[in-house]
Structure formats: structure tokens, C-alpha cells
């Protein structure tokens, strides 16, 4: 018997444990880049178009959760909760340090000191762009962590 690559064996196992039909699985897999790009777009262009860090982060979480719905629990088990925890804390600390930039520059906490650029282009808005990105990271990782723990509590113990 031909030895299959490990990655392909893993993928076959995942496919066998899937909860939904092949139609749902294929559609979710095909939509993955679109949904992720949409979430990142909502975060990045938060200062130009409706949206922002909170909304875009939730879209990214929704992408992962659609994978859970289509493929079952094992596909979301690949996330390490330490990584998500770290990302959440990096987000929170980056927010505070972005605020401290204003104090360092001689004004107040969270003053928009790096404002500039022509309005309507991507590189404008100063700290709004930075804070949107930071909040998006924080919301995506934090909500994903909570949902993963709650999903683990739904699984039957051994």
C-alpha cells in the first residue's frame, strides 16, 4: 500500500469526522480567503469606511466559527490557547503604549499626535489606524479564545 503524506492523512481524518455534507464543506473552504480578506479590510479601512476594529475582528472570528460548523470540533482544536492569550495581551498593551506616545510627545494621553496624510487615503488618521488594528487583533483573539473554551466545555469528557 502506498504511503500517503502525513498532511493528507490528517486531512482525510478531518474529512471523516466532518459534521456537514461535502457541499457545505467545499463552500466554506472556498469562502475562506474572501471572508478573511473582508475581515482584514474592515479592520484596516476602519478610519475611511464604516467598520473598525471591533467589527472586523468579529468577522474574522465568524470565519473560524463557520469552519467549526462545517468541519466539526477537531478543526478548531489546532489553535493553541496560549497564542490567543498572548495576542490578546499584546493588543491591550499596544493600545496603552499608543496612548502613552501622546504623553511622550508632551501632550495628553491618547492624543492623536501622528495625524497627517491626505484624508481619504489609507495612510491617514494617525492613531485611529493603529488603534483599529490593535483593537481588531484583541477582539479577534479574545473572542476566539472564549469561544474555543466554551466549545471545549460542550465536548463529552473522556
Amino acid at each position, binding site marked *: 500500500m502506498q504511503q500517503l503524506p502525513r498532511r493528507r492523512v*490528517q486531512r482525510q481524518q478531518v474529512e471523516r469526522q466532518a459534521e456537514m455534507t461535502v457541499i457545505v464543506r467545499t463552500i466554506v473552504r472556498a469562502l475562506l480567503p474572501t471572508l478573511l480578506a473582508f475581515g482584514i479590510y474592515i479592520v484596516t479601512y*476602519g*478610519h*475611511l*469606511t*464604516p*467598520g*473598525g476594529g*471591533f467589527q472586523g475582528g468579529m468577522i474574522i472570528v465568524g470565519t473560524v466559527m463557520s469552519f467549526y460548523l462545517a468541519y466539526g470540533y*477537531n478543526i478548531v*482544536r*489546532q*489553535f*493553541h*490557547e496560549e497564542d490567543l*492569550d498572548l495576542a*490578546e495581551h499584546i*493588543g*491591550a498593551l499596544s*493600545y*496603552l503604549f499608543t*496612548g502613552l506616545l501622546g504623553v511622550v510627545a508632551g501632550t495628553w*494621553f*491618547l492624543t*492623536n499626535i501622528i*495625524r*497627517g*496624510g*491626505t*484624508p*481619504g487615503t489609507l495612510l*491617514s*488618521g*494617525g*492613531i*485611529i489606524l493603529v*488603534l*483599529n488594528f490593535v*483593537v481588531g487583533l*484583541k*477582539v479577534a483573539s*479574545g*473572542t476566539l*479564545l*472564549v469561544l*474555543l*473554551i*466554551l466549545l*471545549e*466545555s460542550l465536548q463529552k*469528557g*473522556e
Partner: protein
Amino acid sequence: MYVFRGILLLLTLWFLAVALLLAFGESKSTGGPLGGVAQVYNAQTVAETTSTNVVAAINFDWRAYDTIGEASILLTAVTGVTALMRRYIERRRETGAT
């Protein structure tokens, strides 16, 4: 008992009506459909923050200090869930990430 609840409901509605009337009356007194600070936001957003999204400019520039509180709510929620459901985190760690 029902009479007492009815009176309480009427009092609450009356209070709400007075509060809303006061609020909208106040906004009308400054002239225009947008009252008070809304006019400042509408006129000054692009000039002051170089952002074209007024909501983002309020959330992350003028009221960025409020957004810290908003984000810390999420941090507290995550901390609470990880503290309360420690059992499941340990079980998740034992069964192993594939």
C-alpha cells in the same frame, strides 16, 4: 398590587417622556437638526483627524479613553471565562492540539 404597578409604570413613562422632551428641546434650541457637539463633530472631523469615518474618529480619537474601557470589558470577560472554565482549558491541553 396591580394598581401600584400601573401607577409605577405611568410614573416611569412620564419621567421618560419628560426626559426625552427636555433632550430634544435642548437640541432644537441650538439651531439646526444637529445640536450641540454633533455639529462640531460633523464640521471638524476631516480637518482635525484626517479620517473620513466620523464614528471611528469619535471612537478612537476624541473618545479613545472610553474605548480603553470598552476594550477592558472584553479583557475582563476573557479573564473571567479562563478563570471559571480552567477545567476545560486543562482538558483541552491534555487531549492536545493536533
